[in-house]
């Protein structure tokens, strides 16, 4: 079944309207979810088409090529596996595909990434998540244009990062919208944009340089020529001879490059056998560096591996000792400390703490580490050890965890040949990009470990939004067939975990769902509390909750719900708990007294409850009003579910 609805108010080319009018195809065998997502899409003012069958959807896409911008597909479908659809769409139509599933296990998400999904949404999908999907469309188009763009790799990649800034967005977004709607014109439009933006580098903010592979290659060869120890930005700049590139660009890039090499040198020990070894010239740690870069850049397909190998081997061969020299270290150390945002640390942490660097740079990272075993035993181990992502232990000999994470990830992706180089490349880019964006990541980047969830860098959530799209998709895409290297900034989020980034936008709800699926009883408790909280806040939205005045004659209308329900616990709970917190939010005749009385006045509540004529004997547990809900909920939650398993 395929229906079309046009979003009200979708206008073509109106700048302020984007992403309204986005043409979405939703495929899901579940009619309920389909209807809901359809409604959400309409709310987002997308032009949505729905399908219950993958085969129908595919035909639709084939018939109407160029009529859709993005595809949302369920993973589990009866007629065709969602992943297959994903592949087909990727191959034939090259549209961004977003997967949806109730399955939030890491492996499932990983599978989505591997098959090239742009994003992976966990059901139940919320409207906010749908509002964000346009980013994948824009990003894809921009990346494709970047590939065509040979005239140099400088673009002002600011635009796609300032997600929340409407005013700044309108122009770029309008262009994007037009690009979306008129694919043929896209390259020309794009170039115009670039020229427009780079017209006045002096007046606008310093345009951020995007280090494409070619550019980086030029950079590397320049550095190579000069020798890493002797490579100064000025000379590199001269050698590179790229118009528009400034000394500052080169300087920062050089910094990052050095950090990158350092990082890799520590990772080297872990990489045995995981990657094709460049004929290991050096016993030293740096051999891996060569491998990484080679693989990474080779994956881009721009540089023949041998050339790169030679390049890097030479590059690294010489400064084998130099990189570790104290002078360099000091410089780097200061450089990194100087970088306000601690992304430097993150970048480093991703791979490796500073070799031989005595002090812990920047933040305090919790020193817990995962061992390889923990990791490979499954990502289940992750939640408890997510802080390793950010941990930097300036410890020489190690194969420790920031790198471990890397390694483990490598392991897991090991059988995917192309993935590792892409990932390394990506990390490389991340590192570089992170350091190019000090403004955005100005705040402390310490990862906040939430004990029960995957890492959610709480503070940076706002900035995450700003760099949002690029970051998450970059993570996603890199593991797919996509050989395009995305240079968009990888935010903090990406450091935490690859799979965390799969959960769209650092979505705590997704995580809650994850837990809901794995630990029904405990999770339901917390989400009940969550929902209760929300209930308190939102009953107001039910139309302006109007607490009933007490004097209304209620007694004759005994609460039918309480009494009728078979579960005596429910009655008890309802009466005992009342409604936690803001009683006034919820008009409830039986707790009318509680509404008035203060929450903490428990004794009064008890009296009131008793006075309604119900004998309740469970009081002793309700010491703390705040916690009241939990014991109750726990109690009858466990009642409900544990019986399934007992015996």
């Amino acid at each position, binding site marked *: 079944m395929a229906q079309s609805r046009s979003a*009200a108010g979708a206008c073509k080319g109106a700048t302020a309207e984007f992403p309204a009018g986005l043409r979405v195809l939703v495929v899901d065998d*579940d*009619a*309920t*979810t389909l*209807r*809901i997502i359809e*409604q*959400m899409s*309409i*709310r987002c003012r997308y032009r949505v088409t729905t399908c219950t069958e993958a085969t129908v959807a595919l035909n639709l896409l084939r018939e109407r090529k160029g009529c859709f911008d993005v595809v949302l597909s*369920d993973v*589990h479908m*009866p007629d065709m596996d969602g992943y297959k659809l994903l592949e087909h769409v990727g191959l034939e139509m090259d549209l961004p595909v977003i997967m949806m*599933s*109730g*399955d939030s296990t890491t492996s499932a998400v990983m599978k989505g990434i591997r098959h090239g999904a742009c994003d992976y949404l966990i*059901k*139940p*999908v*919320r*409207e906010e998540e749908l509002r964000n999907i346009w980013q994948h469309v824009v990003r894809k188009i921009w990346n494709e244009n970047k590939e065509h763009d040979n005239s140099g790799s400088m673009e002002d990649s600011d635009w796609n990062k300032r997600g929340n800034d409407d005013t700044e967005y309108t122009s770029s977004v309008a262009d994007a919208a037009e690009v979306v709607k008129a694919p043929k014109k896209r390259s020309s439009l794009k170039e115009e944009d670039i020229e427009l933006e780079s017209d006045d580098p002096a007046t606008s903010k310093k345009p951020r340089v995007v280090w494409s592979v070619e550019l980086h290659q030029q950079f590397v060869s320049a550095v190579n020529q000069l020798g890493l120890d002797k490579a100064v930005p000025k000379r590199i700049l001269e050698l590179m001879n790229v118009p528009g590139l400034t000394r500052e660009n080169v300087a920062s890039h050089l910094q990052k490059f050095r950090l990158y090499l350092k990082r890799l040198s520590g990772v080297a020990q872990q990489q045995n056998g995981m990657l094709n070894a460049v004929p290991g010239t050096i016993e030293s740690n740096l051999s891996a560096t060569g491998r990484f870069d080679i693989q990474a850049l080779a994956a881009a397909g721009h540089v023949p591996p041998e050339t790169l190998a030679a390049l890097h081997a030479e590059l690294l061969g010489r400064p084998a000792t130099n990189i570790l020299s104290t002078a360099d270290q000091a410089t780097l150390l200061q450089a990194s400390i100087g970088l306000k945002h601690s992304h430097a640390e993150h970048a480093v942490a991703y791979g490796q703490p500073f070799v031989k660097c005595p002090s812990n740079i920047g933040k305090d990272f919790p020193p817990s580490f995962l061992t390889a075993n923990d990791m490979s035993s499954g990502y289940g181990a992750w939640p408890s050890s997510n802080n390793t992502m950010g941990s930097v232990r300036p410890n020489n000999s190690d194969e420790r965890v920031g790198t471990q994470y890397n390694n483990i990830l490598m392991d897991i992706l090991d059988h995917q040949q192309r993935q590792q180089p892409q990932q390394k490349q990506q990390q490389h880019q991340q590192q570089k990009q992170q350091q190019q964006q000090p403004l955005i990541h100005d705040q402390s980047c310490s990862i906040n470990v939430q004990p029960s969830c995957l890492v959610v860098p709480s503070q940076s959530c706002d900035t995450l939004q700003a760099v949002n799209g690029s970051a998450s998709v970059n993570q996603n895409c890199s593991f797919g067939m996509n050989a395009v290297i995305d240079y968009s900034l990888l935010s903090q989020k990406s450091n935490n975990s690859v799979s965390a980034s799969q959960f769209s936008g650092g979505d705590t709800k997704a995580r809650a*769902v994850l837990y*809901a*699926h*794995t630990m*029904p*009883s405990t999770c*339901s408790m917390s*989400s*009940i509390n*969550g*929902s209760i909280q*929300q*209930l308190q806040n*939102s*009953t107001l*939205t*039910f139309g302006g909750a*109007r607490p*009933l005045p007490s004097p209304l004659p209620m007694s004759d*209308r005994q*609460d039918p*719900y309480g009494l009728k*329900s078979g579960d005596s616990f*429910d009655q008890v*709970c*309802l009466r005992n*708990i009342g409604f936690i917190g803001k009683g006034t939010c*919820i*008009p*409830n*005749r039986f707790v009318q007294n509680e509404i008035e009385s203060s929450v903490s006045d428990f004794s009064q509540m008890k009296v009131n409850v008793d006075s309604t004529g119900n004998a309740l004997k469970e009081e002793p547990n309700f010491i703390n009003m705040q916690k009241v*809900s939990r014991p109750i909920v726990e109690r009858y939650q466990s009642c*409900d*579910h544990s*019986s*399934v*398993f007992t*015996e």
Partner: protein
Amino acid sequence: MLGFGADLLWADMNRLLAFLFHQGVLDEQFLQLQQLQDEASPNFVSEVVNIYFHESEKLLNNLRGLLMERELSDYKKMGIHLNQFMGSSSSIGAKRVTNICVAFRAATDQSNRAGCLRALEMLEHEYCYLKNKLHELFQIEQQRALVAGVRYPVQNQ
């Protein structure tokens, strides 16, 4: 007196909702559904819920059929049905039902027939409960709309 009735009904509805939230029968996703309802789609919630009921009954029948087979039960197929059931239940915010589906699916993964049977019973029970409550909710909603409609000549259905 009419206004009074409307108020009472409204209070009833809110109370029922609050109760259901409290019990964990519904969760915040249901609120999302309510928010999606607007003038353009004034019956959205009931529409979706009806779709859900319709689909769920089919699924439940299938599940029961599969489980009652005397030969080896097709656990895999059950798992597939359960996936769908889980997806739709979580989409409308039927939390308890979803949770039981999870447990049920775990049982199918282990090919634990006794566990599956129990889970199925619980599932059916929970589903019936949910259905009844939601029907009640819609009834109150309808009454309220009627009452409000009589009093204020404003459409809202």
